């Protein structure tokens, strides 16, 4: 992702000015704010929901909510964090409403979990499609955490603000989600945890003395 992870300070100043202008009655300010963030918020909604129409609906709901709630923006967060939160909430609302309906992966794609050598042979476009499909299969809390941190580029503390959870929870969700993605994408061998080690076996396992902290 390219543009300012978490929003560069100067961009946040601009965003705050636009939001203040909107609240003060400037009829063009909110549109300008939307235009500055629309593409990234669209990406977030689309990848969270996995359905273009639903993503468009969610983004519209979110922006209307932000429009109405602009005066309530307290200024203790970045505007981009606030916008991300509004969009994530709109998406999660929709996911809750259609809990029984499975997420539809975005692109047509092969089954996740291609072997690594095959994966390496794929072009960038195919890789992106494969990753999108694997993302869509993650548990939603892991998917959203990864989208915020690894795709949207928000720092962990901002992602935690967006989600309303401790930073440690975001780290855990991201790491677990990455591990699943690594399996799906063939970057990690899918070997089960070894069986419980017997005392005698442990004593004979030279690696067991290697330790790791």
């Amino acid at each position, binding site marked *: 992702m390219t543009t300012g992870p978490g929003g560069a300070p100067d961009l946040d100043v601009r965003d705050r000015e636009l939001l203040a202008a909107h609240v003060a009655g400037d009829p063009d300010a909110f549109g300008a704010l939307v235009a500055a963030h629309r593409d990234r918020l669209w990406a977030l909604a689309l990848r969270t929901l996995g359905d273009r129409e639903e993503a468009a609906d969610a983004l519209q709901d979110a922006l209307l909510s932000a429009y109405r709630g602009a005066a309530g923006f307290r200024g203790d967060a970045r505007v981009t964090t606030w916008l991300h939160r509004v969009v994530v909430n709109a998406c999660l609302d929709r996911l809750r409403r259609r809990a029984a309906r499975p997420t539809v992966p975005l692109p047509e794609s092969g089954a996740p979990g291609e072997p690594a050598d095959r994966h390496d042979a794929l072009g960038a476009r195919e890789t992106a499609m494969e990753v999108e499909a694997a993302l869509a299969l993650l548990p939603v809390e892991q998917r959203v955490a990864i989208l915020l941190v690894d795709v949207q580029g928000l720092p962990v503390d901002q992602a935690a603000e967006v989600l309303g959870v401790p930073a440690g929870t975001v780290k855990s969700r991201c790491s677990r989600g990455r*591990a699943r993605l690594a399996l799906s994408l063939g970057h*990690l061998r899918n070997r089960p945890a070894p069986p419980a*080690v017997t005392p005698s076996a442990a004593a004979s396992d*030279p*690696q067991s003395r290697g330790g*790791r902290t």
Partner: protein
Amino acid sequence: MTSPSPHLDLDALADALAGEGDPAGADHLAGCGSCASRLDELVAAEARVVAVLSALPLPAAPAGLTGRLDAALAVEARTHPAVVGASVTALPVARAPQHRRWLPAAAAAVLLVSGAGLGVALLGNGVGGSDSDTATTTADALADGDDAGLDLLLTESGADWADPAAGTTALPRVLSGAADRFALQGPAPASDAESGVASVDELEVLRTPEGLAACLSAVLPPDEPDLTPLAVDYASYDGRPALAVVLPDPDPAQVSVFVVGAGCDAQDDQTLFFLRAPRP
């Protein structure tokens, strides 16, 4: 000797990698070469995953998304000038007009200062057909059966206004009158509207003077109820029947097009899409 702790599963390894593992897991890792080896693999694999994720391209926004969002915000500004919510104070947008422009987006809010009253008046005149002191607006004239005297261009272009090219292809045909012309019909049977049974022609109500009057009363800016649409095109949006109301734009070089759904009425204009396009 006590039994060793079980090996860590993938989630526990991932938590350990994130620095969020529990102490028991850490103790196990410290003494288990197998799990330490798996953690090393996970470290390398997650690094590759992060690299791939950070390089994902932005997905292309669908055509019309911008117009759709603009329309939604314009409608919001027009219909909810002062929204008060749990943690939301009234937006001063409607109280402090700075521009006369009423579109796109939030600019429409400035018209709402007296919009509600005008809307009700239009509805009363338009739909009820009674208590009409004056019949100077498009909606009034339509409701009074005076559509023949109105310079209102009604077309059936067959266009789908979700098509990004509609502004350059359909619009000239509509405004030049080259598109098929259309004449309003008599009142729709009440049974369709009230029974909820889907009509074959979803635009049936809007093809009547009363239905169109009600819809226009919601679409037209409240402080310009006498604004006459340049054209009204019975067409579609994203495959669904829709009405495109072409209005003069504050910029004389452009026109504003509201695409509204078949359910457009005085209470809800059901705007699906908003487009500003060069005036042909």
